[in-house]
């Protein structure tokens, strides 16, 4: 009950933050319309180009949303707000959950906007395929949500913007959000170890056939999540025991 009120205000704060709106919704939307609009009937990576870029841009925007949400901890640390929260009965787990949930809320917005834009341009999926795509995106975002919390304990407010923007764009680019980077060879093997690759593949995988994600995707997402969680726990402990 107590955590619920806290969560409500956390969501409210997130909604009022314009930076979220710009990087998680508007940029991906503009890019999608610019690329997919004139190429409605083209094919990319074996599927329709609008579907490919719709998923790619949804992946980019939602990644941005969940990473930035956790990374805002950096700002709260800098002004001493986290110390103030640490002397309230709010549990650290509730504090972090609120960050993750508000990130997911913005991610859902981003995905919904891209899906809406996609269906206008001509992306046609049945209900199961839409839901599968959504489910895969939400699962694929887990390591990025943890990454955000980790960055929130490592990055200073001054470097927060460039770090998140650069890192998210790089991961999105390597993952193929702006078009497949490589289609074969050793480079593909490496790229397939990135969670962002599988995030971008959510659209293609949702079409079924091969059966959602291959085992490798689940393993990649799980390993990244576990590793990033461990690092986050460590940086959190270092941060709270030092001062």
């Amino acid at each position: 009950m107590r955590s619920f009120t806290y969560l409500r205000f956390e969501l409210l704060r997130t909604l009022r933050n314009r930076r979220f709106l710009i990087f998680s919704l508007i940029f991906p939307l503009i890019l999608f319309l610019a690329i997919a609009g004139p190429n409605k009937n083209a094919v990319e990576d074996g599927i329709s180009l609008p579907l490919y870029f719709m998923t790619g841009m949804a992946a980019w925007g939602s990644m941005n949303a969940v990473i930035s949400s956790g990374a805002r901890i950096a700002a709260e640390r800098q002004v001493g707000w986290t110390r103030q929260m640490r002397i309230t009965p709010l549990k650290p787990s509730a504090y972090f959950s609120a960050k993750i949930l508000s990130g997911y809320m913005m991610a859902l917005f981003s995905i919904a906007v891209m899906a809406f834009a996609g269906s206008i341009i001509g992306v046609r999926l049945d209900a199961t395929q839409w839901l599968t795509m959504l489910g895969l995106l939400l699962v694929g975002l887990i390591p990025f949500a943890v990454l955000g919390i980790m960055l929130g304990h490592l990055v200073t407010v001054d470097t927060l913007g460039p770090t998140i923007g650069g890192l998210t764009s790089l991961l999105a680019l390597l993952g193929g959000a702006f078009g497949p980077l490589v289609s074969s060879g050793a480079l593909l093997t490496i790229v397939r170890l990135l969670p962002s690759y599988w995030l971008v593949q959510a659209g293609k995988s949702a079409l079924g056939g091969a059966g959602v994600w291959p085992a490798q995707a689940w393993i990649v997402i799980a390993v990244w999540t576990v590793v990033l969680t461990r690092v986050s726990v460590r940086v959190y402990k270092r941060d709270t025991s030092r001062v």
Partner: protein
Amino acid sequence: MTSSETRSASIQLSNLTKSYGDVQAVRSVDITIHAGETLALLGPNGAGKSTTIDMMLGLTRPDAGSVTLFGSSPADAVKAGEVGGMLQTGTLIQFMSVRELVTMVASLYPHPLAVKDVLRITRTSEFADRPGKKLSGGQTQRVRMAIALVADPDLLVLDEPTAALDVEGRRDFWTAMREVAARGKTIVFATHYLEEADAYADRIVLMARGRVVADGPPTEIKAKVGGRTIRATLPDVDEEALVAISGVANVERRGEAVILTCDSSPSCDGALRELLTRYPGARDLEVRGAGLEEAFLNLTGDQDDLHDDAGAL
């Protein structure tokens, strides 16, 4: 310890010690605070007040020693909502109005005060709908006070609470605090103003260089640190003649003016009488309390510390 003893000694700091690198911030501090007491931690900057408070709240882990709040660890007392505080750091978070912020903090505590009342007491009502980032320093401090008050904890810990406040803000702050104390709550505040500690605390713990150097009621502490100076325009008088006045510890000449330092308030009274008897021409007389920092140094003594440091090595 029996349960009644545990209850009356609501806060127990035993042998608290903390170093940051080579700096010994807090050195074996022992303080027992009883429920309902208003205690001032008085000391100059760097005395170890903030570090002591951080350890009391569980924000910093002591190198040695322990803290007990109402019979449990700081972490458990914080979890139970028994503790509230106002820390030295910080502006407020963005994108939330003052009212929302106070409401949010209130929701985290088991028995908060009504938000409306707290906004009124702290005089934040008039800008309650403004976002945190658009407030002045004084307004921000009032909001932080509201955040600490709304929790209505059994123990309220305040680290230099009036630092950014103007005269009116200070008065409002202490009016609110008196109300809190009247309801039997325990208040611990850090300050470097002797007047503030004297006016609002039942008891003063004097800290210098990480140590407790005195602990007692304000009158007692005031007598200890109440060194005074007399300043007078008095040309053509020998400094040696002035030192001879009983009660005068030191004389300094600044042009036509002289500054006499006395050990205590009574000795200053005597010295002043004698000065006027001997030199009726003395004018522009000014008597004031010596700087707290000087008083602390006199009380602790540099040599003492050098010995200890050498011993520690």
